[in-house]
């Protein structure tokens, strides 16, 4: 299987605090195409920092992040904007949809930034919203959707741009059990059917139970890296 992300000796130290904080310590990992991975660990273990660094939102103090044979750790900020746009999908804990845009517009927006044609954009957005079971909510704004529905729109948005992988930061934390399961079903299906690489940071046992790989971070270092056989 093709390697999607490769990190090598990744370290991140925050020095703008009273005492330097070593958020990541020498993290070396590989993520293969189609993996469903949960990054777990207690609060402050470095899950979010790891996601930020491999998502190009933050730069490592040391080490490399190689995506598509490119080390994004050495990229300039302006290149990172473009890289994120074309290669990475994001799903956030608080959904973070654009409130003034409809579900359809929210999903299309990222493709608009990619300068795709209007026809292509509409087709893909409809397709993605259908995939997450919201084909009847195309023209609805986020405020009129439930939390679960908003998060499904966020998943559709993350996948619409056909990214190399999707980073999901605690995506089920704000959802009730039914919505969380619904979302996980959808993500698991997309992972299986479209071979999309998913990397979650989570505390949620429901997510951990679905993941085929679980990486445990403790104090910024990889404590365990376990693989499971699941359907």
């Amino acid at each position, binding site marked *: 299987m093709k390697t999607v992300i490769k990190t090598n000796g990744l370290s991140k130290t925050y020095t703008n605090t009273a005492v330097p904080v070593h958020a990541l310590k020498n993290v070396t990992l590989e993520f293969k195409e189609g993996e469903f991975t949960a990054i777990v660990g207690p609060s402050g273990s470095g899950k979010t920092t790891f996601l930020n660094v491999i998502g190009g939102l933050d730069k490592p103090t040391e080490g490399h992040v190689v995506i598509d044979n490119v080390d994004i750790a050495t990229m300039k900020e302006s290149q990172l904007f473009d890289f994120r746009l074309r290669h990475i999908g*994001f799903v956030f804990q608080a959904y973070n949809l654009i409130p003034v845009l409809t579900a359809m517009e929210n999903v299309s927006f990222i493709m608009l930034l990619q300068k795709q044609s209007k026809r292509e954009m509409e087709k893909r957005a409809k397709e993605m919203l259908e995939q997450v079971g919201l084909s009847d909510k195309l023209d609805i704004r986020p405020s009129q959707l439930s939390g679960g529905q908003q998060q499904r729109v966020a998943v559709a948005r993350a996948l619409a741009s056909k990214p190399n992988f999707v980073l999901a930061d605690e995506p089920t934390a704000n959802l009730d059990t039914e919505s969380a399961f619904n979302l996980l079903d959808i993500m698991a299906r997309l992972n299986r059917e479209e071979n999309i690489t998913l990397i979650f940071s989570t505390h949620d046992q429901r997510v951990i139970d679905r993941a085929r790989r679980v990486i445990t971070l403790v104090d910024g270092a990889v404590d365990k890296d376990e693989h499971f056989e699941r359907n």
Partner: protein
Amino acid sequence: MKTLAKISWRNIWRNRTRTLVIITALVLGIMGGVFSAAIRLAAEEQQFEDAVDNMISHIQIHHPEFIANPEPTHRIPDGRQAACNIAQRPGVKSVSARSAFDGMAASANMTTGVRIKGVDPIAEAETTRLQELLTDGTYFSEEWRLPPVIAGRRLAKELLSEQGSRIVLTFQGVEGEMVSASFRIEGLYSVTSAAFEERTVYVRNTDINELIGDPEAVTEIAILLDDVDEYREAARELQDAYPNLKVRHWADLDPTLHYALEVLDQLLIWLVGIIILGVSFGLLNTILMSILERVRELGVLLAIGMKRFKVFSMVVMETTMISIIGGLIGLILSYVMIRILNVHGVHIPGAEGLEDFGFASVLYPRVDLPFYLQIGALVVVFAILASIYPAWKAIRLAPAEAVREE
């Protein structure tokens, strides 16, 4: 760009009340600015009309000694010829060659000092519109036994005289001898400046020159230009052409008026400046608040790969949209306001006493179309400037932190 504009447009209506408040502030600011400008223009026009157009004209030429001693002894050499030559110059609309000097006016009851202006009735009417200022009587058309005089209403009142009354004017002749002659008040004129109206009388120059002993006498050449804005340049050229005479433009002749207009100009600049700055800071505050409320959302836009320049443009666009809405409504309401006030006039409370100094108590505000465009453009430009700081704040957000902002 279309989607960006759509997002910006929807963003400005997310907090409808706040947007309406800032639009109202913009509208009121523009109306205040336009009103100030309209009042200034009205005051300038009124004062110009009364003081410059009706009384002193744009430029006057005298013998240098005449300034200190306005007597017939200080005549302009070859004055008539000089007036004819000046009338031919480009940019000169009309010229009135006057035989003007100080003297005394006496009725049966009172005596007072006056400036006697011997004029050619036709040339004077073209230069200072004296004929249009008459409120009583006729303009040098009666053929009476006594020569006619046109006096100010206030002077007639002071002399306890009226139209048709006889008054005696006393003045020096060209040899310095005292001359007295009777005149009959043919007409009464009125201007805003009480001081001028109380001490200026007009007679025919043919009548007065015969009395002073020089039929060709000219002591004052009053000039009206096609374009008053050229007054400095025209006065300089005339001074170069007539180096032995004293050429003065209206600002020299009436420094108080010039000063008043300058003060009005400065006042307007400061007033409009302060209004625009105030409104701009209001707008800056509004946009900044909306940015601070949207940190997470902006963080997401940056995280998913929207370039900082586009986020910047979106914020600037939001401000520009608000300023265009406020600007258009403000300009339309200002236009309506000025049209109404132009018909009904604006009464300046307590200004009645200032009429002695040439200030009218009722002004008719008016604004030229270019000013509306200028103030509209200024509002948009300042709004864009005011949006720079919030837009800069927006693009300085670190997406990794912003997306997790509570």
